């Protein structure tokens, strides 16, 4: 059976034009998707049943037992951490937050090691952005700064920028200028009209230099800034100033390098500066297909987009204190529930060590690095394949993922609802 307009649950592009062919409970072909989509839809490596650790080994267990054990672990803990969320649908994220509220727990999502610094910058200076269609239809200058879409967001350029024809740009590839800024000549840099190679940690200085040029202060720019020549800086600034509509997309090159949130703040302020001359937007390249969704859901319920601590009975937010990497490396939490993410693979070693030390439970369809650190793993349906729910694209547009077939796994929502009910029962009124 062919299904049209399928939404891909992999990266922040949230492409919704895939055509998949389903036979029974397998996806057998994918059209319009990138490599990541093909792997996601046609992969077949799921954990078959819930498992839990017994001594130095693992045994299969049932959903009811696994969920009850999990509830007990969370209720016994003084300071549980509920982490992840970016790989599941909004309805499940919502339950997760309410669960954290009644547990008095910490609840955090993958922004904490991804675009958390971007959020910190936005909280200082705001976010002048737009939906991706505005870029597709209008942008004549596109900048990818510290991000490599060809590898991480493979269809970004064809759906939204370089190769995407729009209403006001009928031949995008010809009419649109592409600037790529990176410390290395990535695949994306290879096809740029202008590649700016920066020394690692030099983004802040280059952004400041561009801001100065945009403000009309060319005279103060030294011959080179962080490895970028003055000539190139002038050339790039002129490209930006002559744009009719410029779009800056940035990624982990800015959030993870020296300066972190300050890099992004500088980039946003450059964008705000440019808006006094022409139209410019800036937007983060969100990694997971629903990490922005976790920010949205966290915010409308608690007021804060990530790193929320309910221990005081109110919603408390203090990145650096309430962020997962810090909480784990300080050995502050004594139980952890991981949903739809893999901190074992993506957090520093000291955090993985603590996850192994405390009772950690993972709700995830696949065996991953965190599995080896957990006491229990509960496999669930994959959102967008055998579960449906709301996702928020990297630009904030909400799209509902589809259920392609009814499988045998429960959804994240079903498991979390059951978990919530048991916790509520244990905790009492």
């Amino acid at each position: 059976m062919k299904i049209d307009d399928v939404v891909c649950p992999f990266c922040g592009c949230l492409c919704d034009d895939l055509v998949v062919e389903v036979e029974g409970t397998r996806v057998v072909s994918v059209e319009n998707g990138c490599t990541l989509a093909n792997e996601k839809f046609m992969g077949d490596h799921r954990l078959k049943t819930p498992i839990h650790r017994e001594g130095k080994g693992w045994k299969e267990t049932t959903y009811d037992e696994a969920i009850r054990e999990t509830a007990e672990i969370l209720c016994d803990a003084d300071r549980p951490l509920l982490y992840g969320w970016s790989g599941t649908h909004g309805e499940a994220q919502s339950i997760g937050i309410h669960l954290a509220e009644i547990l008095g727990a910490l609840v955090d999502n993958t922004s904490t090691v991804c675009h958390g610094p971007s959020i910190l910058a936005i909280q200082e200076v705001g976010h002048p952005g737009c939906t991706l269609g505005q870029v597709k239809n209008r942008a004549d200058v596109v900048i990818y700064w510290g991000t490599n879409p060809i590898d991480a967001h493979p269809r970004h350029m064809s759906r939204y920028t370089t190769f995407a024809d729009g209403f006001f740009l009928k031949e995008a590839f010809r009419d649109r200028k592409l600037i790529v800024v990176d410390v290395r000549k990535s695949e994306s840099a290879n096809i740029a009209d202008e590649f700016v190679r920066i020394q690692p940690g030099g983004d802040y200085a280059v952004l400041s230099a561009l801001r100065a040029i945009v403000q009309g202060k060319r005279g103060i720019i030294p011959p080179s800034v962080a490895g970028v020549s003055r000539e190139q800086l002038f050339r790039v600034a002129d490209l930006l100033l002559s744009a009719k509509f410029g779009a800056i997309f940035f990624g982990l090159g800015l959030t993870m390098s020296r300066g972190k949130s300050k890099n992004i703040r500088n980039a946003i302020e450059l964008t705000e500066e440019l808006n006094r001359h022409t139209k410019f937007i800036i937007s983060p390249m969100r990694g997971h297909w629903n990490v922005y969704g976790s920010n949205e859901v966290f915010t409308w319920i608690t007021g804060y987009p990530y790193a929320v601590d309910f221990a005081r009975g109110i919603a408390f937010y203090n990145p650096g204190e309430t962020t997962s990497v810090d909480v784990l490396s300080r050995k502050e939490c004594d139980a952890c529930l991981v949903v739809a993410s893999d901190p074992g693979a993506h957090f520093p070693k000291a955090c993985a060590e603590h996850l192994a030390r405390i009772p950690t439970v993972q709700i995830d369809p696949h065996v991953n690095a965190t599995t080896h650190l957990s006491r229990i793993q509960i496999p669930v349906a994959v959102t967008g394949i055998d579960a449906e729910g709301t996702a928020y694209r990297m630009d904030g547009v909400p799209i509902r993922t589809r259920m392609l077939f009814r499988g045998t796994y429960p959804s994240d929502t079903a498991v979390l609802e059951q978990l919530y009910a048991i916790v509520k029962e244990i905790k009492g009124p």
Partner: protein
Amino acid sequence: MKFLLNTGRTIRQGSYVERKNSVAYQEEATSLCMNPVDMMNLEVEEGSQVRVESDQESVIMKVHPALWITQGEVFVCLGPYANHLVKPETHGSGMPDFKGTMVTITPTSEPLVTVADLMERCGGVRYED
């Protein structure tokens, strides 16, 4: 020799996210890209093992030449091997120095380890299906 360790996404790494215990993922996540001139100075050949050490940790990876990386820097896709080397210090930002860790790289004949091995080093218990 000292290098700045840069980590980031690659499409291969992305394709194996649901198979992190596979050989294919291990190959990608232990692939260290180095400038050919640095490789010459380090006296290592394509595909040979290197010991990558940060402050307190070390991990074995395999080195590959890449013209697109400058001398003095290396690139590994994000994942447990790279993160074994990253300190949890976030400087109050919540974000560790994923793109700012200095490492020392030396040739070695030690073998690669699996993701399960790495997690056991952290105190975990391997799960094999």
